């Protein structure tokens, strides 16, 4: 009778420590100061880089069981900075990101898929401006028990999310594709 509480305590301690041989899932969150979420649009045939300064990423990953993992990202759209004052004012409006109506964009994965060692794909849904589209988000994961980094790159079609509507929907001045790049430092979420 007196031993049972101790056994329960010991088991609990092992779980809390993320006992490696148990192969448990690790929960990670982004470290904002050391993370970047960037994009490159094209304007009159020239590349225009931009960045989202405020975003949050959460990763649950068990390399043994990636199917049970998740990658969730939330981006504050109004933190976009394209380095051109007039453009920054313009993209806030209804034709572009429409910050007032859609303050956040999000990606929610349903499971993860391992491609090779350290490379995964997160199948899920990307929601921007109220439009949800399926997306297979590729990323590389490298980590130690205390910190990790995920990085990846993908191309999005702005028209699919209604980014640049009306006369901006034509792609002569602002190109159709936007390259998105991220490098996120992760720290344990506990």
């Amino acid at each position: 009778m007196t031993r049972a509480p101790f056994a329960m305590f010991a088991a609990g301690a092992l779980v809390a420590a993320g006992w490696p041989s148990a192969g448990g899932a690790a929960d990670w969150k982004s470290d904002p100061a050391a993370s970047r979420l960037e994009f490159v649009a094209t304007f009159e045939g020239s590349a225009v880089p931009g960045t989202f300064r405020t975003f949050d990423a959460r990763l649950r990953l068990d390399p043994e069981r990636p199917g049970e993992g998740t990658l969730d990202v939330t981006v504050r759209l109004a933190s976009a900075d394209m380095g051109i004052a007039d453009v920054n004012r313009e993209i806030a409006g209804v034709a572009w990101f429409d910050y007032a109506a859609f303050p956040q964009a999000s990606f929610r994965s349903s499971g993860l898929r391992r491609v090779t060692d350290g490379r995964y794909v997160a199948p899920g849904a990307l929601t921007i401006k109220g439009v949800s589209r399926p997306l297979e988000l590729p990323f590389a994961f490298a980590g130690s028990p205390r910190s990790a980094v995920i990085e990846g790159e993908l191309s999005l079609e702005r028209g699919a999310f209604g980014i640049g509507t009306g006369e901006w929907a034509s792609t002569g001045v602002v190109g159709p594709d936007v390259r998105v790049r991220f490098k996120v430092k992760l720290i344990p979420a506990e």
Partner: protein
Amino acid sequence: MARGLHWGMAVLVGVQLALGAMAVTWRVSPAKVELFFWHKSLGFLIFALLALRLAWRAVDRAPPLPAAMPDWERTAARANQALLYALLALLPLSGWIVNSAANVPFRIFRIVPLPAIVPPDEAVTRAFARVHLGFAMLLLLAVAAHAGAAWRHHRVRRDDVLARMLPWGGRT
């Protein structure tokens, strides 16, 4: 050659002033972006033609002014001509500063990428946009004085200063 450059640039500068006025007043739209694109591209073409023109002028001297012209007219003519050349150089340069400070990527005629000559700065953008506009106003005045003087040579003085410059005129 000198006449060709003069009249060619006269037409381009006219188009350029119109494009600039339309670009700044147009509501934000792809059309506004296109207007700015052509305004900037044309600005660099005019800048290049100006360099060619000054080089040509150094090689092939302009014909002398009529002997009957009083000194003040000669001084005024030279001063206004110097002002025209200066403005034709200062307008593209100040525009280049505006574009650089605004941090807008730009390829001249979608071909030659334009490097920035000042770091991004909104205050500099606004200040040099005003300078650029001021130069444009000054150019309009200088062109008006230049054309008025040419008309005066033709109708009041009845000399050949305008006639010898006309594109269809004979070689002097």
